[in-house]
């Protein structure tokens, strides 16, 4: 029987050759970053434009693809790799820049100088290393989870292998480690679940290993439903084999033969890349039956979700896989006792699994070099909202959040008003928390807050915190599975009250009622119901002055629908006619020179202000009903 490692080494030799040819190509290659964010920025149009220029000129240039680095505000990104292995990154590259990029790749150095961001690898006079970009100042010099981004084609198994991929698992499969050792090293590393609850991953694997029967299932939670979080997406689109290898290690350590990746429908590219990577791994003998000739089996399949937030709750996820409504059920039994098809199962987040190959390869001490005593290693975070630089980073736990805001270029459009972490079941933190927060779950606790799965949204003072709270309240109401009266009824009430306040019709009894709803929701079955009042609670705790002001009928942000009106501010601005024409509900009254907005008709969409900001504006409006 051929040894697993020998089989791996043979595979590795081919992969090394292919990767070397990609890293030091015979002729220059232009790679366009293709991921969900770059596509939204027009990367496919940029790629098509570059293709046209290359073929029109019959240029001696190849085309390829990478995944973006995290600097999303500079999308679309393009990188050029020269035969000496130097790779230059450019962005934002629009179709109009295609000529310049092809010129520069063809040897006319300087043609695209203004688009250069930095050197991915190698050196060129006057071009800084990408790692010196201020956005990456808080990242480890050497990325871990994101180590392959920009340095591989995410759709190439060979590239992954050539970058040491599947090496640790080949050693493991060749019985250089035992199942117990696998789980022990995860525990020693201190790896905890990245899905939000921070439960030690190795301990969960112990539960499954010790569970009855032979039929064990390994499930990956790739539902990533928190709006503002796209941490898991980056792993699956950028390095899909890292997740597969992580699950392979988990399967070995727990004796699981079947795995599922439950992937949200909103990530079509992640679905495509994961499915392709699974097929590649199977074809290479790294997945499926008789893996690397060891007789071991691990089959893996993507289950495509269909837009239900609570399917991210692990028991909801399990019932969704089993052809049912994805409703969370009562625990116990826990998944390790009764999971998919009533068999013992383990559910972990994408990022939890993705850490496993790194830990197995480098050991637990290496892993603990970053992070803190209580939160070891690194984690991917996505930052968005009213900041200058939107994107994702891999950060050691413990980094001060104030520093993060700094490298994100600070606030734009206004002062920091609130920090939103942990998604709709998460938190709303006040500006005064910023100097005290570090990226570690328990640092958020004093604020009755959670850090969550890695999405953090910075909000400026141009939006009311009540409007933010209403938005999340409406989300959790909509996504309640309906099993518990507390949850579906309580969340309806919570949303209705917030809506009424925004409408300028708040009541004194609203606050005690919101608190009563909060207490009632604690009796819900799952964390969805239990955590759904958290943002509103944070509103009352940390933004009480804003809440009180709203009740009185004051809203300095002029975003609470019932507390402002749209008015004509300049009758003689020529743009006013455009404002009248754009209004979708024909709310303007009167002839030119004497125009006004009919407040009852106006839906406050803001379209008129968009086209005529100097002719129309917002004006505070007092409550129309007395406060009692």
């Amino acid at each position, binding site marked *: 029987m051929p040894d697993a490692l020998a089989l791996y080494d043979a595979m590795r030799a081919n992969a090394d050759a292919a990767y070397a040819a990609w890293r030091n190509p015979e002729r220059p290659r232009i790679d366009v970053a293709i991921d969900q964010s770059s*596509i939204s920025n027009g990367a496919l149009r940029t790629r098509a434009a570059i293709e046209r220029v290359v073929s029109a000129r019959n240029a001696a240039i190849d085309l390829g693809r990478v995944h973006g680095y995290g600097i*999303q505000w500079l999308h679309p990104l393009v990188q050029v790799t020269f035969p000496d292995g130097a790779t230059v990154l450019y962005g934002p590259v629009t179709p109009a820049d295609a000529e310049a990029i092809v010129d520069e790749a063809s040897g006319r150095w300087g043609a695209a100088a203004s688009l250069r961001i930095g050197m991915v690898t190698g050196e060129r006079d006057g071009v800084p290393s990408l790692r010196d970009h201020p956005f990456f100042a808080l990242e480890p010099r050497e990325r871990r989870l994101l180590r392959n981004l920009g340095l591989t084609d995410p759709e190439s198994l060979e590239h992954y292998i050539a970058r040491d991929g599947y090496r640790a698992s080949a050693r493991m499969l060749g019985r250089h480690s035992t199942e117990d050792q696998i789980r022990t090293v995860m525990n020693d590393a201190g790896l905890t679940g990245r899905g939000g609850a921070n439960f030690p991953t190795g301990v969960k694997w112990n539960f499954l290993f010790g569970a009855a029967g032979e039929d064990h299932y390994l499930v990956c939670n790739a539902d990533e439903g928190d709006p503002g979080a796209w941490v898991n997406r980056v792993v699956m689109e950028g390095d899909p084999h890292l997740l597969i290898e992580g699950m392979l290690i988990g399967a070995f350590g727990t004796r699981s033969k079947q795995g599922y990746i439950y992937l949200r*429908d*909103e990530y079509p590219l992640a679905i495509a890349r994961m499915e392709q990577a699974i097929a590649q791994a199977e074809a290479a003998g790294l997945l499926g039956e008789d893996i690397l000739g060891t007789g071991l089996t691990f089959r893996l399949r993507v289950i495509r979700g269909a837009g239900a937030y609570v399917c991210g709750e692990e028991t909801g996820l399990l019932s969704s896989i089993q052809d049912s*409504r*994805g409703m969370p059920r009562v625990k116990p039994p826990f998944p390790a006792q009764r999971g998919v098809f009533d068999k013992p199962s383990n559910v972990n987040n994408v990022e939890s699994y993705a850490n496993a190959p790194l830990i197995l390869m480098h050991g637990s001490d290496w892993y603990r070099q970053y992070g803190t005593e209580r939160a070891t290693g690194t984690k991917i975070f996505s930052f968005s909202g009213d900041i200058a630089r939107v994107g994702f980073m891999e950060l050691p736990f413990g980094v001060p959040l104030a520093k993060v805001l700094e490298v994100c270029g600070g606030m734009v459009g206004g002062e920091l008003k609130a920090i939103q972490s942990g998604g709709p079941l998460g938190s709303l933190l006040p500006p005064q928390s910023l100097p005290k927060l570090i990226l570690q779950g328990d640092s958020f606790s004093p604020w009755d807050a959670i850090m969550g799965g890695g999405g953090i949204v910075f909000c400026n003072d141009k939006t009311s915190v009540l*409007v933010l709270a209403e938005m999340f309240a409406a989300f959790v109401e909509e996504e309640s599975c309906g099993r518990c009266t507390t949850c579906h009824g309580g969340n309806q009430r919570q949303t209705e009250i917030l809506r009424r306040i925004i409408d300028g019709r708040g009541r004194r009894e609203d606050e005690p009622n919101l608190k009563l709803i909060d207490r009632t929701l604690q009796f819900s079955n799952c964390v969805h119901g239990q955590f759904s009042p958290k943002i509103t609670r944070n509103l009352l705790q940390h933004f009480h002055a804003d809440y009180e002001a709203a009740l009185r009928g004051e809203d300095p942000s002029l975003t609470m629908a019932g507390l402002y009106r749209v008015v004509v501010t300049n009758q003689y601005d020529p743009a006013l006619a455009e404002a009248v024409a754009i209004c*979708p509900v024909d709310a303007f009254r009167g002839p030119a020179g004497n125009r006004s907005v009919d407040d009852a008709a106006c839906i406050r969409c*803001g379209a008129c202000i*968009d086209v005529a900001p100097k002719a129309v504006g917002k004006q505070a409006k007092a409550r129309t009903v007395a406060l009692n």
Partner: protein
Amino acid sequence: MPLETESKVRLRALVAEFRPNNGDLLAALHRVQHEFGYLSAEAMEVIGDQLGLFPAHVYGAASYYEEFRFEPQAHTNIRWCSGPACRLRNGNGIRDALLASLGIGHMNGQTEDGRVGVILGQCNGACEVAPMVWLEQHESHTIEPVGNMSAARAVRMARALRDGATIEEATNA
């Protein structure tokens, strides 16, 4: 045996590879919706037959999910991003402008002539272009993300689509 309708034959062929008790329901529903744009009563029946489930079970499960549709979809759907980064930039105004311009009373509705619909979307992590929408045409399987929206742009886009514009024309409207 009575002759089956043409659509039924097509449906059967589409779901032939799926098996009972194998976690195949979501995949079967997606496959059919991809092909037909929505899930008909006939589709519930055929999928149920294939997976050994009552049509009521199939419908019960399918109706749990936001993405499954039970009526023919509009020719072009405007998928509105409901995520936080988009809301911070007048996402609500964009939503209301879209609905009002098209005379649609509520999210997930469509114009009477079936030309344009507005459906709920979720953040997929392209928040740097917030606020955004996606223009989708089921027949050609087109999805076009449109970032840096404004309420005014939403009105122009909606009016253009209502008047028969292509996705490209609507994007540049």
